[in-house]
């Protein structure tokens, strides 16, 4: 897959993306295009590498203190709820669960049953998965956690309304989701609401027991975020690349005011080319054709760019002028025929 853009001094920059097979033939045809644009080859946004999950240093410290029976130090090492919620907001619920577990275990070990109980409730409220470290904990810690989960599940849930960009998805503690605008029934406690959407910067909010409505106003995703989102979406579902959302996202990712996305495929020995054009991140034209690579590429590009009004071709303009004159003449003829009174030679006599 290649990214091509052609720049002419008198014409706006047009970025052309070609994907599919045979990519090379289409690119060669674009290079020979008569359209007044120049080409530049770039790589498409690549999927971001998923960073390996590293063990949190505070977890390692807590574990060491616990094993060494340094329970006060253990409690100090694991930090407070803010750190846990921050991890949940980043989607690292597994780490958050382990941190909370160690907080609970350390507190219980110091005899702070109240603190351990509150931590167990926080754990239950966030509905985190119980970590493998539970095997190291005392039966008292297991019992506290079991009681907290049971108590909390018996308490009534509260309904919270979520508002924000339409079609963005809000998730609570990485679990239940709904498409904005929507509402969810949440168990008591503090939760992390996370809203995600194409072209938007992910935004998180803490939702406390006092909140009944949460309004999100996520920022517009900058090009690097848009590129990551586009690549992730394309890797997951390549067929969605020609959708309005995908093309808009790609245009932003590539900083392309004028973008043409072309998908080529071989069908019964001929090239079939589908294209989408966007201007200022809005899809404005679609075209499709099949046949010889050179002709098809030129025709599809021409159709898209003329339809998008990115390129005004003299021949097309002449055709438009002719069509306008023709339409005017036709309208005049129709008007003449409708209004004209025939010269009637009527004789009156006996």
């Amino acid at each position, binding site marked *: 897959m290649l990214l091509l853009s052609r720049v002419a001094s008198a014409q706006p920059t047009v970025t052309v993306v070609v994907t599919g097979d045979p990519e090379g033939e289409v690119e060669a045809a674009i290079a020979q295009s008569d359209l007044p644009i120049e080409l530049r080859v770039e790589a498409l946004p690549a999927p971001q590498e998923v960073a390996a999950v590293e063990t949190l240093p505070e977890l390692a410290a807590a574990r060491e203190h616990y094993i060494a029976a340094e329970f006060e130090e253990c409690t100090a090492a694991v930090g407070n709820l803010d750190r846990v919620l921050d991890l949940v907001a980043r989607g690292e619920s597994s780490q958050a669960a382990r941190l909370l577990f160690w907080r609970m275990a350390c507190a219980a070990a110091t005899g702070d049953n109240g603190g351990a109980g509150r931590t167990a409730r926080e754990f239950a409220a966030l509905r985190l998965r119980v970590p493998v470290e539970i095997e190291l904990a005392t039966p008292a810690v297991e019992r506290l956690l079991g009681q907290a989960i049971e108590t909390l599940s018996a308490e009534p849930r509260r309904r919270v309304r979520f508002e924000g960009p339409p079609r963005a998805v809000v998730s609570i503690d990485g679990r239940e989701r709904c498409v904005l605008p929507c509402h969810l029934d949440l168990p008591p406690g503090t939760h992390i609401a996370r809203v995600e959407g194409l072209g938007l910067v992910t935004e998180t909010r803490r939702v406390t027991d006092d909140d009944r409505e949460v309004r999100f106003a996520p920022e517009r995703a900058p090009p690097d975020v848009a590129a990551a989102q586009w690549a992730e979406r394309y890797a997951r579902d390549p067929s969605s690349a020609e959708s309005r959302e995908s093309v808009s996202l790609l245009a932003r990712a590539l900083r392309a005011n004028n973008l043409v996305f072309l998908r080529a495929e071989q069908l019964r020995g001929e090239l079939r080319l589908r294209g989408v054009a966007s201007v200022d991140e809005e899809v404005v034209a679609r075209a499709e054709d099949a046949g010889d690579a050179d002709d098809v590429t030129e025709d599809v590009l021409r159709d898209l760019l003329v339809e998008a009004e990115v390129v005004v071709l003299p021949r097309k303009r002449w055709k438009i002028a002719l069509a306008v004159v023709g339409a005017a003449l*036709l309208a005049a*003829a129709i008007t003449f025929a409708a209004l004209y009174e*025939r*010269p*009637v030679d*009527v*004789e*009156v006599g*006996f």
Partner: protein
Amino acid sequence: MKAITTLALLAGCAVTERIDLQIVEEAPTVFSCVDRDGPLVNRAGEPPYSVQVVIDFLELPVRIVQVADILRTCRDPGCPVRPEARLCASLDVEIPPERSPNDVVIARAVNEALTAQVGTVLETVPPGGSMVRAVFTTAPCESLDPERPFENDDLIACAVSAPVDLRSFEGQLELDLPTLSSPCDIAEVRGCANLEQ
């Protein structure tokens, strides 16, 4: 472009149509009117009658069909005669010797005389609504002034058509005298002959 030219040519083609005027021949005809001296047709003497026919075209909206409305309209705002369209002609009306000269026979003879001696009255009709009027009088054509009313003593008969748009009318246009009395009298003939006055 070819189609446009064809359309224009078709639209430009003049069409010649003909409206045939005819005095209604059903009794009582317009020649049945009387004054205190008897039938007005007697003013023309003995057959064959020698009379003048004056054909006028009065401007009148087509929508008017009732006699009362015609009279009212001619009084206000008026139904002026189109002076350029006036025709006056002398007629010799022959009555077959075997026929008694009643009003129906006279009307038929007048129609025949009009066809034979007058023929075409107007070659190009004016636009808008018109009412055709035929006034039969003993006064010579050269003495008739469109600006002045017909002389009462010269009138023999008067017939009018319904107001029509002559440009769109086709076929036979009948001329008659709507009357309120039987037989019709000189007052009605005078009114008909001087509608525009």
